[in-house]
């Protein structure tokens, strides 16, 4: 009896993927230091309090992480559709009653936080995708039209709604995450070819009819930011200056002039990576890049050792989720991609992002926890 209990205890601790926990935690710590710097400039009194908020979000995030670690993730497949439709309802609610910011309706004010349904929508998408994809046959050259129909509908509805908000960044992220999962599950080659070709055809049409002026401006500014250095190209230029001026070792903690003197816009959210790059230089920015990539590799390994297909797809979904956020955010900050309002997971300030990310990682942890077969 005594012996059995001890074995149980040991296995609980052993089952947890401590590598995963360690890398997430490392990114959290870097993120907190960096956020402290970003929110404590000489004129930053208005955002100083956000640092403590973030610690609260982190606590909540880790709680969710461990709750999901210990709950069998198979439960997710049962509630996936419920969560998906509830979330869809929230997205619709936001469209009609949500608070307006920057010309877009994005969140619901819950009092203690601003809930952004489009953020959790990404996770709900991943769940329903894992559920529908898990038993698709993927041999015989991959999924055909019939296999794809339902997933595309599942993705298409929130995509269109979020585009209408308008929040092109989030919508594209949903498409990218879903696309990655679909691609992972293998698609027939001719379908891929059709998608690529129709994408090329649709791009100019979308440019002319679907995009709003500010969205066009962002893309134009990405192509030539110096067109309007004080206007819409400002963010991109200032971010590049911040990153580059960090040079090899950086300017030092809380000594980044671009961030401390507020030349960097949105320095505690979308441009948090510029703050880091400026103050810790190539050393710091490449270290964080490496931490992220290592975390991705850990997640891939968890997927490969998953006990079932559902777990694997779920893990791949969360992986895509964090990967694409990191890719778009860092890409934009270092001037490789146009400016889109996408936070950097684990580093940017923000409750919705933090809770969603930690929940997602909790699911991955849950997959890892159950990797052993008894």
């Amino acid at each position: 009896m005594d012996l059995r209990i001890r074995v149980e205890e040991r296995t609980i601790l052993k089952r947890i993927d401590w590598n995963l926990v360690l890398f997430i935690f490392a990114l959290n710590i870097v993120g907190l230091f960096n956020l402290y710097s970003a929110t404590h400039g000489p004129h930053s009194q208005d955002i100083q309090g956000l640092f403590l908020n973030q610690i609260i979000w982190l606590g909540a995030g880790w709680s969710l992480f461990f709750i999901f670690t210990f709950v069998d993730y198979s439960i997710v497949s049962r509630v996936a559709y419920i969560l998906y439709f509830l979330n869809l309802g929230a997205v619709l609610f936001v469209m009609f009653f949500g608070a307006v910011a920057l010309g877009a309706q994005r969140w619901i004010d819950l009092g203690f936080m601003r809930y952004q349904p489009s953020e959790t929508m990404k996770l709900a998408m991943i769940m329903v995708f894992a559920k529908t994809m898990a038993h698709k046959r993927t041999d015989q050259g991959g999924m055909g039209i019939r296999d794809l129909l339902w997933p595309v509908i599942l993705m298409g509805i929130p995509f269109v709604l979020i585009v209408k908000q308008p929040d092109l960044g989030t919508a594209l992220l949903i498409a990218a995450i879903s696309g990655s999962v679909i691609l992972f599950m293998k698609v027939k080659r001719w379908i891929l070819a059709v998608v690529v070709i129709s994408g090329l055809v649709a791009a100019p049409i979308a440019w002319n009819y679907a995009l709003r002026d500010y969205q066009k401006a962002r893309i134009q500014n990405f192509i030539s930011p110096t067109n309007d250095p004080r206007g819409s190209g400002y963010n991109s230029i200032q971010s590049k200056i911040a990153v580059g001026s960090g040079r090899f070792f950086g300017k030092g903690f809380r000594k980044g002039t671009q961030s401390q003197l507020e030349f960097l816009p949105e320095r505690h959210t979308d441009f948090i990576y510029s703050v880091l790059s400026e103050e810790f230089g190539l050393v710091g920015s490449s270290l964080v890049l490496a931490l992220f990539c290592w975390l991705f590799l850990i997640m891939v390994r968890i997927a490969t050792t998953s006990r079932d297909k559902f777990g694997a797809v779920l893990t791949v979904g969360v992986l895509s989720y964090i990967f694409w956020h990191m890719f778009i955010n860092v890409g934009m900050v270092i001037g490789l991609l146009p400016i889109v309002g996408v936070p950097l997971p684990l580093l940017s300030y923000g409750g919705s992002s933090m809770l969603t990310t930690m929940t997602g990682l909790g699911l991955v942890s849950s997959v890892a926890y159950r990797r052993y077969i008894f």
Partner: protein
Amino acid sequence: MSEYISNPEEAKELLPRYRLFYVAIAMTFFSFLFRLWYLQIIEGSELREFSDKNRIKQIKNTAPRGLMLDREGKVLVENRPGFEAILTPQFVDEIDDVAEVLAPILGIEKDKLVAKFQRSQRQNGPYAPVHMKDNLSRDEVFRLKRIRLDTPGLEIRETVLRSYPLKGDGAQLFGYVGEISKKQIPLYNQLYKGITFDQGDIIGKSGLEEYLEREIRGEDGMQLVQVDAYGRETATQTPNIYGEQIKDKESVPGYTAVLTIDKTMQEAAYNSFTHDGRIGGVIAMKSNGEVLAWVSTPGYDPNEFAAGITPQTWSTLVNDKFKPLRNKVIQDYFSPGSTFKPYMAVAALSEKVITPTTIINCPGSIHFGKRDFHDSVKGGHGNITVFEAIERSSNIFFYKMGIALGVDKMYAYISQFGIGQKTGIELPRENAGLMPNSAWKKQALGEDWQPGENLTAAIGQGFVVATPIQMAVGYNTIGNGGKVVRPFVIKKIVDNDGKTVRETQPLIVRDLTQVQSTGIHVDPETFKVVKDAMRRVVQGPRGTAKRVNIPGADIAGKTGTTQVMGFAASDIYTLCEKRPLEQRHHGWFVAFAPAENPEIAVAALAEHSCHGASGAGPVVHDIMKAYFEKYHPEMIADYLKKERAIKAAAGPVENIEGE
């Protein structure tokens, strides 16, 4: 429930797909790493510089302009401290909002502030700081400081304001200052090698302020401060990047200009001129060319320019028909009228047309060519010599001299007095006036000189025009027996250590007792005769300007009246005072004293004052009085005593004023 549990075999079929992720992760890592390396290592230094440029702002400390002092060191133009409100456009989010906040504090309407801001952006480009208001009051400064942090782009700067304690007195001489215009910047940078002119710089825009720009300007200082994205000065843990390499540079004040002006006389001239609301110009000059007083009216207050002139004030000044901005002493020319006659007398005597004792018959009018030429006195003056002719200002006498001499002989003499030539005074935009001759008319108008024009020219009408300063120089030449001097107003320039940088030496341009380029020379005796005649104008029993007389000062001079427009024959004798102001004659009075050995020459032109003696005479009288009271009270002691007695008799009130 069981379909997902423990089916590792099924999951294994996915294994080959993970390659996709390895590839994506590796590509992302290396491309991002390469980009970071490119930005932070390859472009790092350049981008570091950009980030420093963002936060380090150079602030110019404008050097105080040099002072202008009178000949005794009394202040004519100085500086006083002030504050100005400035907006830096790139930090201003919405000018409408900012203007809304500023309007009640500055007491300027919101729309006007917005307009001012936008005008500056159009004229000076989008990044030039905009001066919203200069010369802020203490209260305004406090209220602006309170909203400073909530208003990005707003700055309160300490400035040095140019101050003109004499206000309108001598405004056109001293000039005014203002912000350099965008067009002027390249011109000035080319004109003044070694000095850099920038947006927002204050420069002299007219008068001595403009002429003395190089000496009076000083060297601007430089201060480096760290600012945040909203333009607020901000201290951080990172020190000034330039560290010890570049220190703040102190500004160096401009050099002091010591003028030849005598403040006492300057004030006397101005008070006298404005007392009756006279329009015109007056200049008083020492016989060696040093200008003692210089007034042009109506004046304007240059202090208003120093504090940033409003468009309304500016347009009032520009549209004023009596042109307050013009320096009438050198820029405007007038027919000399009868003040021309002493020059004619010199020419006629030198050419032996007459001798001092020649008697000429002068009726009320003479017929020449196809028309009658009238005297101003209906019955004429009868038989008179040159003495009476000048004393009573006979036109007929000088018509006859004009006929006898012809224009080219007149030109040979009178041009040598400086009529028709610039005097060489330091100030820019001097007008040369005109002394015609037949060759000039042929060339300029393509017509031959008409004999009748000899008559009009002889009494200083027609083509002949002169500036007040030319008349002062010309009369000074008669007074001192033939020496044409170059007038000057800048005595010396003194640097900040008190060392004299340059000093103006008096210069005799010509001596008319020697043979001149036009082949003439004047006998010293001739000047004595004309001087005696001019004495009688002021001191003689029938002189036209007896009211100017100051017993003991021995003033010699000549009145002049010039028609502003032609009148019909029936209208000639209409009383001048009954005409509308703008049709009234101009009055001249030009004089020197003491006649025997002149020390001072004064030329006054009073526009639309009808008569020389009553219009311009009193100004000359007051200047002369101020001069002798100050420099030779012994000469006019009796006169002063008598004047005091009169005032004392008039009652206690005047008595107090007199003291």
